[in-house]
């Protein structure tokens, strides 16, 4: 029987922290990094193009722009909260997520995909005719322009933050933010187009339907596609904590492109029947979400292993219990089992607080690279206090 010593566990923690990049600070300003300048140039061009467009149309469609920007800002905030909710593990710095969001919103759209889409649609119309282009143009253009444009941002992000982006799960989360940025900016553009559809009259009425549809359909659109694509990209490239798996990578890159193509061709596939269109739309959303959940469970395993390696020494030192270790390094079901183990409502509530405090300790340990700092000691004391039902420290 193998005996695991505390030294072994501490060593495993050290390796997990090194491999995962968890807790490291991200510094965006890196003048000696080509990716920094490349990012600035392409995002800068995208911002200029987009702001110029909005500014030019603001006097005509100010109401619709205001409504769209406000609505989609709330939508983005909701999505941000959701990604924080699903990412319990080796968290990426918020700054990196903002950098990803801006790439998707401005570089991938205005500096890349928008130009390519226009050109490809026009070429399709010239070569295959207007009707064919209307039927299949969008479905055979966007997957080949928008997905690579968004995904290419991850290449720059890896060059900017090689110590942070270590797993396919990191690709999944950053891809989701790249896609979210793209989606928000694209949705505002669609709302703007709708505002002009009635010659600029009744622009709120004309755009609100588009905003609602884009919000509902957005749950399984760009953010999800890019998340899967970027997870695939990490498998394709390989990272220190994620061995290269070319087959899986290619599959995950191809799936969102296929979903995107089908999504953009829904009206043509369904034909004139509204019922068929609605049924197909729901089916594609369900399939996309199911694939998203599958990729999440596939990629999150490594992150859960990191949490277990980082927190195992705490369990061995009786800072946390074995049950808490299983819960924080497990999935939603494991956390739920732990919470439900309380005898009454009060205990179950306290169990939730304890779990949050354990996650806090994990983050503090990662930031301290496993060292026994004042902050780490305080986080340990907090777990003990909450578990004992003690009063919080005075504000």
């Amino acid at each position, binding site marked *: 029987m193998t*005996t695991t*010593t*505390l*030294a072994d566990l501490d060593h495993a923690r*050290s390796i997990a922290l090194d491999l995962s990049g968890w807790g*490291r600070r*991200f510094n965006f300003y*890196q*003048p*000696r*990094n*080509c*990716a*920094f300048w*490349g990012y600035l140039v392409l995002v800068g061009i995208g911002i200029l193009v987009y702001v110029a467009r909005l500014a030019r*149309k603001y006097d*005509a469609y100010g109401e619709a722009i205001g409504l769209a920007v406000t609505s989609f800002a709330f939508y983005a905030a909701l999505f941000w909260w959701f990604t924080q909710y699903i990412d319990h593990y080796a968290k990426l710095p918020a700054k990196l997520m903002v950098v990803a969001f801006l790439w998707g919103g401005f570089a991938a759209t205005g*500096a*890349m*995909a928008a*130009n*390519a889409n*226009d*050109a*490809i649609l*026009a*070429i399709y*119309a*010239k*070569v295959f*005719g*207007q*009707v064919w282009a*209307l*039927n299949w143009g969008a479905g055979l253009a966007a997957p080949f322009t928008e997905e*690579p*444009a968004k995904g*290419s*941002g991850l*290449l720059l992000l890896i*060059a900017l933050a090689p110590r942070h982006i270590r797993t396919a799960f990191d690709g999944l989360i950053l891809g989701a933010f790249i896609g979210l940025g793209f989606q928000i900016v694209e949705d505002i553009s669609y709302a703007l187009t709708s505002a*002009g559809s*009635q*010659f*600029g*009259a*009744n622009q709120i009425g*004309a755009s609100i339907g588009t905003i609602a549809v884009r919000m509902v359909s957005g749950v399984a659109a760009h953010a999800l596609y890019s998340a899967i694509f970027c997870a695939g990209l990490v498998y394709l490239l390989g990272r220190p904590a994620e061995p290269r798996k070319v087959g899986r990578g290619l599959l995950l890159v191809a799936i969102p492109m296929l979903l995107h193509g089908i999504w953009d061709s829904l*009206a*043509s596939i369904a*034909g*004139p029947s509204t019922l068929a269109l609605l049924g197909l739309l729901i089916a594609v959303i369900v399939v996309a979400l199911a694939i998203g959940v599958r990729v999440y469970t596939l990629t999150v395993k490594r992150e859960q292993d990191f949490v277990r390696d980082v927190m195992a*020494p705490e369990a*061995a*030192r009786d800072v946390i219990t074995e049950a808490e270790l299983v819960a924080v390094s497990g999935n939603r079901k494991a956390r739920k089992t732990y919470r439900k183990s309380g005898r009454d409502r009060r205990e179950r509530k306290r169990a939730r607080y304890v779990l949050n405090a354990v996650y806090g300790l994990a983050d503090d340990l990662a930031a*301290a*690279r*496993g*060292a*026994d700092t004042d902050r780490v000691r305080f986080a340990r004391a907090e777990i003990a206090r909450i578990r004992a039902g003690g009063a919080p420290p005075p504000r």
Partner: protein
Amino acid sequence: MPDPETDNSSATSAVRFEPDEGWVPADMRFLGVDRRTIAPTLAVFALAVVMSVALPVINAKVPYHDVVKVGDVIELQGGVTFVPDVGWGITSGVRAGQAPLSGEYPATASVEQGALEFRVHTGQFDGDANQLLDQIETTSGAINHGRGVHMTGAHTTIVTDQGKQGATARVTGPHTGGVIAAFVFEGRGVEAVATGPSDAGAEPAAAALRMIRSISRLGDGKR
């Protein structure tokens, strides 16, 4: 389980020094920059150039020939149609009877011949033709701020071959002149704009008027 004999080992171990992200190993520098970051950046720039430069250039090089033949009718959303002049090129929009698979015709169509362009757009509108023309003037004025092509002069009345009464006005811009017309078919507005060089002569103007007068809505006579 941890071995009790070695459990006294401290959790505090010396944290390995890690330079900040801006640091570049001496053997990885090329002209001061981190050479490991050159390839990914170039790859992304290459993709950006393909998308923003190469594809538009290819599009500009691909010739386009979809010329209007005798009997062609262009159909737009809501059953709005017009008859383009024979010989003009269809740059957007589809012929009546060739609906996309969705069954929905596009809201905009345009035809052109040389520097002359004729564009028709349709959308919902509550009001009459003069109000639609006012709305178009307000919106385009807010977008263009007096620059580019803009409406000049008072509205005049125009009647289509189908007998539908609309409103029309002249449009002018730098070296450009033309006419804009507006019709409203029971809640569906139609905007038609014909533009060309200001010295284009009488025939283009006559062609534009012919196409404007051909605007109709399927089944409108029955309504």
